[in-house]
Structure formats: structure tokens, C-alpha cells
């Protein structure tokens, strides 16, 4: 019965190239404890773990689909929905908070209209509030993907958004 459901779910998903996932699975298939590296590899490939990919991993690694879902929801590093090309993280830890992080969060919301853990419909941005990025000396702090922006101001938010709006999606 569960297989029947999986088939139906397959049809609702956007088109996903499963050969990418199959390649990752092939790489780790004989390794004990391969679930985490396979999930991490799949997330790197797709940006998130699509349902069909989770089902494929379950079938090929002979792991319960429920167990995969348990792992995916336990670790904050896994995502179940498509993520933006640019991940904006604003630190709301203690040091950043006293230096005005709430205002930075607000102004990102004003510019992008997405709140915590939300992704813009065009898949350009994902916004996240995080508790401490480990660089309190630079408070208030923001990151876009791997780039760090210290001593944030409302003005800098506009500049950052303007900059990333120009960048290509591919």
C-alpha cells in the first residue's frame, strides 16, 4: 500500500532528475552508516531533499522512509522545501541583539517580504534568523551564503539587497 502512495506523490512533485541522487547513492551504497552522507550529498545536489529523492534513498538503501524523515527533521541542516539561491542569515544572538539586530531583521523583511525560514517565490532568497554566528565583535552581523557583513545598518541592508538582486540566478 505504501508503494501505491509513493507513486501518487511522485506525480505531484516538480520534475526531479533522479540520476543525480542515484549517482550519490552508488558512491556510498556499500558503506556502513551511509544514510547521512547520502542525504548530505543529495541536499548539496538539489538544495533540499525532495520527497521523491527521499523515497528513492529509502528504497535503494533499504531504510524505512519514516526513519529518513526522522533524520531529516532532527537535523537543522536538512531542508524539505526548495531554498533560495541566496541564504541570508541575520544573527539575533545576545551581542547582535543589543547592537540592534531586530531592526536589521525588520528591514530585510521590508525589502524582501519574507520572514524567518521563508523563501521568496522566485527562489532567489531564503531568510533565516540565527542565534550567534560566532563573530560577536562584528555585531550586528549578517551573512549571505558564505559572505559575512559586519556592523550592519539599515542602509547596508538596502545595499546588500540591491547587490544580490543584480546577481544572476544560474
Amino acid at each position, binding site marked *: *500500500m*505504501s*508503494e*501505491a*502512495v509513493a*507513486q*501518487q*506523490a511522485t506525480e505531484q512533485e516538480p520534475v526531479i532528475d533522479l540520476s543525480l541522487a542515484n549517482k550519490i547513492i552508488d558512491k556510498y551504497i556499500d558503506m556502513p552508516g551511509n544514510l547521512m552522507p547520502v542525504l548530505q550529498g543529495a541536499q548539496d545536489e538539489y538544495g533540499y531533499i525532495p*520527497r521523491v529523492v*527521499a523515497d528513492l534513498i*529509502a*528504497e535503494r538503501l*533499504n531504510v*524505512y*522512509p*519514516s*526513519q*529518513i*524523515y*526522522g533524520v531529516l*527533521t*532532527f537535523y537543522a541542516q536538512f531542508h*524539505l522545501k526548495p531554498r533560495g539561491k541566496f541564504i541570508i542569515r541575520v544573527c539575533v544572538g545576545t551581542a547582535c541583539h543589543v547592537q540592534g539586530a531586530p531592526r536589521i531583521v525588520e528591514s530585510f523583511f521590508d525589502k524582501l517580504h519574507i520572514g524567518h525560514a521563508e523563501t521568496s517565490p522566485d527562489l532567489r532568497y531564503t531568510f533565516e534568523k540565527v542565534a550567534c554566528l560566532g563573530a560577536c565583535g562584528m555585531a550586528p552581523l549578517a551573512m549571505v551564503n558564505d559572505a559575512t557583513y559586519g556592523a550592519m545598518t539599515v542602509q547596508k541592508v538596502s545595499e546588500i539587497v540591491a547587490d544580490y538582486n543584480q546577481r544572476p540566478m544560474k
Partner: protein
Amino acid sequence: MVNLTIDDKQVTAPKTATIYDAAKLNGIKIPILCHDKKLKPFGACRMCLVEVEQMKGRQIPACTTPVTEGMIIRTSTPDIVKARKMVLELLLLNHPIDCPVCDKAGDCDLQNLTYEYKVDANRFTDEKFHLEIDYTNPLIERDMNRCVLCGKCARICDEIVSFGALTFIDRGIETKIGCEFEEALNCEFCGSCVSVCPVGSLLARPFKFKARFWSLTKQKSVCGYCGTGCNLTLGVKDNKVLTTIYDENQGFHNGQLCVRGRFGYQFINSDKRLTKPLIRKNQNLVEVGWDEALEVVAGRLRDSGAASAALATARLTNEELLLFKQLMESVGSNNYDHSAGYAHAALTEGFAGSFGISASPSTILDIQKSDLLLVIKTDAYETHPVVGFEINMAVKNKGVQLKILSDKTGKLSKLPDAKTLVHTPGSEIAIINSLAKVIIDNKLGDASAVSLPGYADLEKSLADFTPEAVSAQCGLSADDIKLLASDYAKAEKALILFPVGQAYPGHTAALANAVANLALLAGKLGKEGSGVLCLSEKNNSQGAVDMGFHAAGGGLNAGQILDGCATGSIKTLLIAGENPLVSYPDHAKVKAALDKVEFLVVSEMFMTETAAMADVVLPVCSFAEKEGTFTATDRRVQHIKPAIKKIGQSRSDFEIFGSLIAKMGGVSSAAPAVVFAEIAASTPGYESMSYVSLGDEGLFASVDVKPVFVVPQTSAAKAESGKLALVTGSVLYHNGTLSQYGEGPMHVCPEGYVELSRADAAAMKFVENDLLTISSANGSMKLKARITPRMPQGVVFAPYHFGANPVNQVWNGAPVTWVTLAK
């Protein structure tokens, strides 16, 4: 053994025990929510905290701490009581106090502990959860607001059922139990999770708002479906069986049940039960009194004499089957059989030839004691789910090797390190012979086997079964066969399991012989955890064989009886509980035979397809209403007592056959106990048994194995090009045709289907649930398509249980039926 002190009491416990086990063993109760004796220790609930003097008075969980020599443990100091109270306060913080409408009330561990620890106030406040309750399936309700996160449901589903439907989702305060992608529960519905839930999070929906737990009378019984012989506790109120109650101390299976056992009981109090005898008058079945009905039947039997015949279901008790046989003999007929004949030939002809006994030498208890299990057909899980649980536990907990020879993969194939060799349908016997050949040729076996009778003939007959030759016809590689043979031979203890039954016509006497030869050659017989076990289909299949209720001494077998009906040589046919129109091969042929026979008497609980054709229908009662014994597939004889009074005017088959014997001028036996005494006196292996000595656990009928080699009769299945190989079988949710009247199984699996591979479906452009026309030389019918990864290309599977659209319209009893599919 380890010596320790618990609450100032000197006690001893096994070295492997935990503090919790040691206390329980010595009658000291430690409260706990997350423990079940079948599951591994988990330590989630923190209710079982105890103080150990050597650990400086720290509070440690009793359920995960092993005992050590000289441990001094206190289980209920004021500090401990305080800590437990706080655990309960914290649990009750989120747990809704909706006990008045919770079906678990009265049987709820949390409720009972709250009462015991007098938690009448809470120092904390928090919001309750507002999670959606899962009402999407008809059997199991999931209310995660009540959950205490003990994890027993997820653990039993993994450790024992091996389905893994449930898991912990998210982290911290958000943690909940659920299915993948928070979908609705869609599983085997065995209800194991319901049975172990300590609160009302998982409930049996059929029992919802039926009765308070404390108003139920608990009646011990034995499951009336398959041959495993699981023990049941029925919850009874107002002469109705309302539920099955979990008892972790019941039976070899520790109360573990499958979907049929747990949710299939509703047929007992079904509205569809027949309550009055019926006689056909002017084409219609009309209600009559018992005297009239029995008089008519007796008159017919007297007239027909030797031209009478009987077919019985192997669901009758041993006592009933013996009386039925005596009735036929008193009429002067020895034409009686059950389950279509071939379904039990593995025992009556196969093992009878090879071992000198019509029974399996091994038992279900051997599974967990083995080193290697060789399962023929993955269907063994579907036909005998609780045996399947034993296999799961053997493989997962004890590291038993699992090798499977099957025409498709299945649930067992997914167990860790299970090796499934998928062969072409119908080639089982050739492969087993080839394994035997490899063992002989490579001298892998038991040297003393050479001296057993028949060795020379066997060796000669195996000449053609080299792995290379067999490989060509079975689709396995020669190396696979050789490797399996050597793995099997090298295992110290190895057990072969195979299901038999009406849907498995390929599992014949020859397969039993081949399997027996293999076990004998490898020296696997006569050891604990080793041997062969034939899994018979119905709850009393083994009993029917032991009672000799099959064609013997010149009598006709089931097939010949129906032929006799068709030709007119059988004039009166008595059918007790069988539904040949659905379960016997070749629907048209059975229908013609039943149409033709002069007089047809059917004793049944329900108006089955077969009963609807009868001249007289006698309403009989279910296993829950009668006394007698059932013999499980591994010879365990168990005693059942009535749990409820008989429904309507129904009578037991025991009473009916007794009355008929009296009418034929014989002496009818007064009570089942008297007949059982007769059985014990006359049946080999049953000596010294009585209702008293059987007790709750039952007793194994003893066997005396006299092994010989018997050359199996093989005939190679011929493939028809351009056609698909249809194999029939049982589906997990059903057993025979009876489960159609249990609401639970019908909710989950209401109709037949044809299962095919993704490759075949893609090639023929079929999608899930397409209504396909399936045609064979025998006829054609329509079935819904089910597309699964487990079927090999070119092979399709259809279950046989369904009266509304029986698969015997296309299936004529061949192990493999060649069919075409079309949309």
C-alpha cells in the same frame, strides 16, 4: 547469577538482567511507561528511577542499568517518589485530561500511575498540544496530543514488525511520533503499536466507544485464522466480542498479533451470521427448525450411503473433524477431504513418505534458535505473519542468516543481510534438488546420510540437477546455487520453512520430499533450531491431517469428490465451512459440480457463495462459541473454551455431527472432552493429553521421525511465450475466505488485485489502479492493477481470497498460470 539487594531484600538475578528485570523477577514493582519485555531497553520515560548505594545515591533508570554483584538498590525512597511525581507532573503538563472520553481509561499506565502517586495538582502550567488526530484509516486512531513519547510504537514497528511506519519527528518540545512526511498511517495495520501504547494515543478504532475497559470480561482463546496458533484474549461484553486485549505474557509470541488476529474478530458478532437452519423449497431457502433440517439431511445420507461425500474446512476443531469422519463412516462412505487435497499433500504424502509422520519435525520455537533460515517463498510472511515476526527477531536480534528462494521479493527480503534468490515461478523443486546435488557432489553433508534408505536412488535421480543445468531453467546463476548449498550445509543449525495452502499449488508432496532430502543430506534433522517446518494454512490444518480427515484407504480426494458430483456418482455432498466456489481451483468446474450434485448440505456461519447453492444450510457457530482443540502447524495442541454464548440458533458442528450420527443409529458423544479422550487414545503423538493437561499454553504432539530418502516427482513448468506467469497466493490481511467477514481485514484490503512489475507496467502502459482484463486458457476476469518493485518482469501475482471476484476464474490449480493482461 548475580546477588543483589533490592529494598532490603536479598535477591538473585541472571547476569544479563537489568535492575528492572531483577526487581520484576522477584516480585518488586517498579513503575514504568516505556518498557515492554519484547523490546530493547530504551530509558525514555524516567519513571523507573531508583537509587543505587554504590552510585552515591544518584537516581538512575532501572530499565537500562544492568545488575552487578552486590548492588544495593532502593526503589521507593522519598526522593525517588518525589522525582517520579515530578515526571508525572511534567507529562501531565501537555497530556490532555480527557479520560472520560478516552478508550484507554482503566487500562492506561499514565492514569494508573497518576492515581498511584496521588498527582492531584500540577506546579507547572503550559499549553496543551493541538495536533490533528489521524482518523484516516479505519483501524488505528492516532492522537499525538496524548503521546508521552515513550517510543514503544516506533520501536515495536521496527524491532518486531520490521515495517517502520512510525518514527520520532523533529526535536525537543516539538518532538512527536509520526509517519514519513507527516502522512497518514499506511501500514500493515497489525496494531502492535496500539497494543503497547501506554496511553490513549494509539487506539483500536473498531473498539472506540464500544465499552469501558473495566466492563469487559477477558476470555482466553486461540486465533481462528492461520496455522500459527497464536493465543488471543477476547474482550467480551453482553455476549459480544468487542476487542482483542493485549497480554504480553500470552503464548510463545508474547501477545504479539497480526492484523487478522487483532482486527479480524468482527466476524464473530457479524450481522451477517446465519442464525436459523434453511431448506430449499420452491427454489428458495426458507427458515425451518433444526429437527426438520437434520431429519432431511439424515434421510439423504441414508439414501445415498457410499455415494455421499464430505468436504470440511480445516477450521473445525479436532473433535468435530473426528465426529465428521465417524459420521461419514457410519453412512458407509470414506469420501472425505479438506482444503482441496493438494493443500495438505506436503504433510500427508510428502513428510509421510520422507519422515514417516504427517507433520513437521520442527516447531516455530526453533526459528529463533537457528543459525540459518531458508525460506521458500517470501509469502511465508504474508501467510503466517506472527511466524514472520519470529523471523524478523531472529535475523535482527540474533543475527540468524536469512536465505530466501522465491518467485518475487517481499517483506522478508528487506531484512538486514537477507539474501533473496528470485527464480522463475515453479522451479522450486528443481533448485532444492540442485542444492542437494551440490551437497552430495562436494561432500558438504552429513556422512551418515549415505546409510539412510533410498540414498542410492536419490543420488541417481539427482544426476540431471547440476547447478548448471538447473540454472538454465530457474533463472539463478549456478554460483548462486552453489553458494546457497554451501552456506546451508555449513550452518551448524539450519531450518527450512515453506508455506502450504490452497493458493500454493506448487508446494506439493514433491517439494516436501525435496526439502526433507536436503535437510537429511545436510544432517539438519533432530537438532534444536534446525530441521524443516511446513507452515500450514488454517488454524487446524495440522489437526485435520492428524485426525485423518483426508483421502485415505481408497476414498476420494477433494478434486475427485467434485468430479464425482459432476458425473453423478456422488449424490449427497456435505460441506462444512469450506467455500470451494472461491477457494478451489477452476471456478467453472466447481460450479458445474455443485450445480449437478443431487443434494448439497452446507454448514456455515455465513451465506457464502457455496452456501447459496445448497439445498440445506445449517447455521454453525464460530471458534469463540465452542469448546475443542486446535492443532497448530507445529503440532501444538491447544484447548479453546466458549467465550460467548452461541449466536441465534446456531449450533456447533460438533452438535450437528453428533445429532446426525445418532439419527444414523450410532452413539453420539456427549461432550468434546470425551471425544478428545478418544483422540488422545488413538492419535499417535497425542497420548496422555487431556483438556486439563493442555492448560493455557497447550502441548506439542510428539513425533517419531523415521527418515528415508524419497525421490521427488518433478515436472518442469513450460513457459508460454508472450504470456505472463500468474502466481497465486495469500495476502497479509486475509486467510482463506473467512477473513472476508472480518471488517478489519476488509477495510484494509477489500478486493483482489493483480500485482505486476514496474517494467511490465511501463511496457504495457498500465498505471496503478487500472482495471485490467486478465485472461488465461481457463477464462478471464477483471482486476485492478497494483504496480510494485517486488515483482520480477514477466511475473504477476494475484491473491485468492475474494468471493466477489475469485481468481479461480482464470486459475485452474496449476502452480503457474499463463495469462495475458489488457486494459
